[in-house]
C-alpha cells in the first residue's frame, strides 16, 4: 500500500513538474539540446564585394575565398578557432621520419556535387593546375617551400603522397588554402591553356562541381549569390545526421557598410561581411539586449594597423632629412603616442594597446612579456634631442641641425575612417612633442604604388594574413620579402639585426619542433622590439554580429569569420521574427 502511495506521489510530482515545464516560457536552448540543430531554412549573409571568378586558383580575393569555402573542400582544414588541423577530404595522414613525405588516405565514397567520384587523380590535377605557368595562380607561392613546388604521387585511387622540398615548420597546414577541383570538369581547359578563363562568373552554375557543403544555384551579377545544399556532401554530424543543416545560403552583395548594418538591425539579414565597427557597437548592443541580434567576441585582430618609415638606403626623403631613418625617432614616436588615447577615442574602447606586430590573436606566437613603451613625452623629447631635433626658435616645434622644421608625412588609405582617425591622433600627439606631421589620404593603388617606388616618408596601413603561423608570411619577416615594410626586396640584409632575423626565420620555417619554433620567433620579436622598424599601437577587438536565429556559429578572427564552418550553421524561425 505504501509503495502504491509512493508511486502515486512520484507520478503526481512528475505530472506537475511536466505541466509547469510545458506552461513555462520557450526554452530554445533546451530544445536544441534535446532535438539538435534545426535543419532546412535559408541563411541571408551580406558581402561587400562581388566575385570576379568562380575559379579560386586564379582569383584569391575575399569573395572568391568565401565561395570556395562554401562550394569546395580541402584535404585538411585548420580550425579557425582552435588552430587544430582537422581531417576533411583526407581522413588520416602520416609523415616519413624525416618529415618530408606525407601520405594522405582519402575518404571513401566521396563524390563531387555532380555525382562523379572523387579520387587521388583530382588531388594531383589540382596541384598540376596550381603550378602550371600558364595559370600563374596567385595561390601558388603560398604552396611552395623555398620557392620549390611540392611533389605529388598517387599511391592508389585513395592514397596520395606529398613530398616537401625541405622540412617545413607549418607542415601540412598550408594545404588548408587549396580547394580540390574536379579533374573531369577542368582538365580540358588546363590542356588547352584556357584554365585562367575557366569558371568565370558567366559560367552556368550547372557546369560547376565541387566537394563543399553547398553548390551555387544562381548568381545575379552585382546583386546576390544563392547556394543550395550539396546533396552529395560527404560529412555527417556526431549524431550521424547529414550536413549541411541549412537548405540555402543567400549572399547579398551590399558594397556599403552602413547599409549592411542597417539591414542587420532591421532583421533582414543574418550576417554582415565584416567585423563590427566600433561606432556601430552601441546601437548593436541595444539590438542585442532587445533579443534581435547576437554579438560574439571573437578575439583580438591579427591585422593591426602598422606605421613604418622608409628605411631603404638612398630613400629620397632621407637625403634631406636623415633623421627620418634614425632608430631613436621611432622609439621617440613609440613613447610619444599614447596608445590608450587611440583605444578610447578611435576605437571607443574596442581595441587593446599593442607593442609589436604579433597581437594576442596570434595565440601561441604572442609574447606577453615583450618590452612596452608606455606613454612618456619627456623621454620622447630626449630621444628626439639625441638625433639633433630640438626647438631652436622657441615656437614649440622642433627643428633639425640645419634649422629646417622636423616635419614628415604619413600616407594612409582614404576612406578607411579608423585608420584616418588613428593618423589624426598620431599627428596630434606628435605635435605635442614638437614633430610636425602631414597626413595624406589616398586610394590603395596610389598608396601601394608610392610604397613600391619608395616615394614616401611614412605609411600607416595594414596587411592581412590567412594564417597565424609566421612562417606562412615570410614576405614580411625576411629582408628579401616584398612586404618587408621598411626596406623590401633586399639583396642582402641591410643591417646585422635583419640578417639575424633572416637566419632565425629560416630556422623557424624548417623546424618541426613546436617549442623550438616558438623560441625562435620570440627572439625575432625581441629583435623587432629593440630596433622598432615598424610601429604598432592598437589591435581591434573583433566582434561579430549575427541574427539571434543563427545557431552553431563559432566566429573567428580570420576570414571568413563565420561562414568558414557553414555546414554546421542552422537557423531557427523566419528571418525578421523575434527569437
Amino acid at each position: 500500500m505504501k509503495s502504491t502511495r509512493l508511486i502515486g506521489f512520484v507520478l503526481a510530482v512528475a505530472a506537475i513538474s511536466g505541466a509547469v515545464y510545458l506552461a513555462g516560457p520557450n526554452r530554445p536552448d533546451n530544445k536544441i539540446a534535446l532535438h539538435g540543430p534545426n535543419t532546412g531554412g535559408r541563411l541571408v549573409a551580406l558581402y561587400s564585394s562581388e566575385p570576379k571568378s568562380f575559379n579560386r586558383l586564379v582569383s584569391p580575393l575575399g569573395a572568391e575565398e568565401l565561395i570556395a569555402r562554401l562550394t569546395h573542400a580541402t584535404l585538411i582544414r585548420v580550425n579557425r578557432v582552435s588552430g587544430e588541423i582537422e581531417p576533411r577530404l583526407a581522413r588520416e595522414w602520416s609523415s616519413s621520419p624525416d618529415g618530408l613525405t606525407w601520405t594522405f588516405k582519402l575518404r571513401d565514397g566521396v563524390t563531387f556535387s555532380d555525382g562523379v567520384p572523387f579520387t587521388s587523380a583530382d588531388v594531383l590535377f589540382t596541384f598540376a593546375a596550381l603550378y602550371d605557368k600558364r595559370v600563374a595562380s596567385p595561390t601558388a607561392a603560398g604552396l611552395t617551400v623555398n620557392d620549390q613546388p611540392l611533389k605529388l604521387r598517387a599511391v592508389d585511387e585513395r592514397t596520395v603522397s606529398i613530398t616537401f622540398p625541405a622540412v617545413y615548420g607549418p607542415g601540412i597546414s598550408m594545404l588548408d588554402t587549396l580547394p580540390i577541383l574536379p579533374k573531369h570538369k577542368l582538365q580540358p581547359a588546363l590542356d588547352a591553356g584556357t584554365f585562367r578563363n575557366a569558371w568565370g562568373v558567366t559560367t552556368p552554375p550547372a557546369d560547376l562541381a565541387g566537394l563543399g557543403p553547398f553548390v551555387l544555384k544562381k548568381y545575379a551579377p552585382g546583386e546576390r549569390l544563392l547556394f543550395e545544399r550539396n546533396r552529395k556532401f560527404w560529412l555527417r554530424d556526431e549524431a550521424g545526421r547529414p550536413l549541411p543543416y541549412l537548405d540555402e545560403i543567400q549572399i547579398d552583395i551590399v558594397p556599403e557598410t552602413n547599409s549592411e548594418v542597417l539591414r542587420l538591425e532591421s532583421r533582414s539579414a543574418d550576417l554582415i561581411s565584416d567585423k563590427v565597427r566600433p561606432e556601430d557597437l552601441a546601437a548593436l548592443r541595444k539590438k542585442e539586449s532587445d533579443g534581435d541580434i547576437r554579438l560574439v567576441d571573437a578575439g583580438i585582430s591579427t591585422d593591426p594597423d602598422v606605421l613604418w618609415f622608409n628605411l631603404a638606403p638612398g630613400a629620397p626623403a632621407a637625403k634631406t632629412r636623415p633623421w627620418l631613418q634614425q632608430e631613436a625617432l621611432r622609439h621617440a614616436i613609440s613613447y610619444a603616442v599614447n596608445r590608450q588615447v587611440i583605444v578610447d577615442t578611435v576605437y571607443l574602447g574596442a581595441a587593446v594597446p599593442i607593442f609589436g606586430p604579433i597581437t594576442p590573436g596570434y595565440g601561441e606566437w604572442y609574447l606577453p612579456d615583450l618590452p612596452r613603451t608606455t606613454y612618456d613625452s619627456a623621454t620622447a623629447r630626449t630621444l628626439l634631442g639625441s638625433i639633433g631635433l630640438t626647438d631652436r626658435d622657441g615656437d614649440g616645434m622642433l627643428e633639425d641641425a640645419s634649422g629646417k622644421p622636423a616635419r614628415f608625412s604619413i600616407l594612409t588609405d582614404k576612406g578607411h575612417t579608423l585608420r584616418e582617425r588613428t593618423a589624426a591622433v598620431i599627428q596630434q600627439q606628435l605635435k605635442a612633442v614638437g614633430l610636425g606631421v602631414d597626413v595624406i589620404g589616398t586610394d590603395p593603388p596610389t598608396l601601394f604604388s608610392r610604397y613600391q617606388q619608395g616615394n614616401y616618408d611614412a605609411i600607416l596601413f595594414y596587411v592581412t594574413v590567412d594564417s597565424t603561423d609566421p612562417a606562412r608570411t615570410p614576405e614580411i619577416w625576411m629582408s628579401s620579402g616584398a612586404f618587408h615594410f621598411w626596406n623590401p626586396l633586399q639583396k642582402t640584409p641591410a643591417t646585422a639585426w635583419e640578417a639575424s632575423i633572416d637566419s632565425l626565420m629560416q630556422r623557424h620555417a624548417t623546424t618541426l619542433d613546436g617549442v623550438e619554433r616558438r623560441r625562435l620567433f620570440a627572439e625575432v620579436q625581441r629583435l623587432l622590439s629593440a630596433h622598432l622598424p615598424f610601429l604598432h599601437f592598437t589591435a581591434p577587438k573583433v566582434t561579430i554580429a549575427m541574427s539571434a536565429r543563427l545557431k552553431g556559429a563559432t566566429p573567428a578572427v580570420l576570414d571568413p569569420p563565420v561562414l568558414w564552418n557553414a555546414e554546421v550553421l542552422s537557423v531557427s524561425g523566419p528571418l525578421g521574427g523575434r527569437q
Partner: protein
Amino acid sequence: MSGQLWTFLIRRSVGAIFFVAIVSIAALVLVRLAPGDATTELALAHADRATIEAARARFGLDRPVLAQVGEWLIGLGRLDLGQSSLYSRPVADLVLERGLRTAYLGALALFVATAIGLPLGVVTGSRPHGVAAAIVTPISIALVACPPIVGVLALLLLAATTGWLSTAPGAVLVPTLALSLPLAATLERLQSQATAETLAAPDVAAAAARGVPPARLVWIHAARQSLRPVLGVYGIVIGTLFSGSLAVETITAWPGIGRLMYDALVGRDLFLVAGCALVGAVLIALGNVIADLIRAVADPRIREQL
C-alpha cells in the same frame, strides 16, 4: 519629322560621337597615368613577383599608353571594348549589362521626378501664398539642399526601420526615390518660378481678361509656356542623374554603371573605366539630344533655330 530636324539630329550625333570618344580616351589615359595599377590587389594578396609580372603583361601594362589607346580605338570600331582585368570578362558585355540597369533606373527616376515635380511646380507657382506652397516649398528647398548621400541614407533608414520599402540588392524603389526626390524638388522649384513669371506675362493677363477660366489659364496656357525653360534644363538633369547614380547605386546596392565605374577606378581596370565612361557619355549625349528634341517639339521658336 522635318528636314530641319533630321539635319539637327545628324549634326548632334556627329558631335556626340566626338564627345563620347574624347571622354572615353581621356578616362583610359588618366587611369593609366594615375599611380598604381590593376595588380595592386594581387600584391596585397601576397602573390609573388612572377605572378604579378605575368598579370601586368596580360593586362597590357607593359606596353606604352599610346599603343593601348590605339588598340582600344581599333577595337571600338568592332564594338570590342577590351577585356576587364578585374572581372576577366569582355568590357562590352559588362557595361551593356550594367548600363541598361542604370538607364532603367535613370529613366524611372526621371519619370517619377517629372510626374511629381512639374505639377507641384505649377500649383506652387500659381498660388505662391497658398497652403500647398507653404507645405511643398520648404520640403523642396530641403531636398535640393540635402547632399545626395544623406538623402539616400535617410531613405535606407526609413526603409529598414519601417519595413515599408525593400532594401534588398536590386530592389528598385529605394534607389528610384533617392534619385528622383531631389530631382523632383529641383523641377518643382524651376517650374514654380517659371509659372509665376508666365502668369504675370501680358498675354496670359489678356487671356484672363477675355474670361478664360482660371484652371485653364494655369494648366493649359501658363503651364505650356512655362515648360519651355524647364525643358531646357533636362539635358543637365540627365547628366546629374548619371553622376548621382554613383553614390546611390553604391549605397542601395543597385548593380549599375556607377558602381561598376567606382570598382573599376579603385581596381585601376583601364578598359573597364574607359567602357564605363563611354556608356556614361553616350547616356548624357543621348539625353541631351532627346531634351533638345522635346524642346523643339514644345516650342516652335526653337524649331526655327535648329
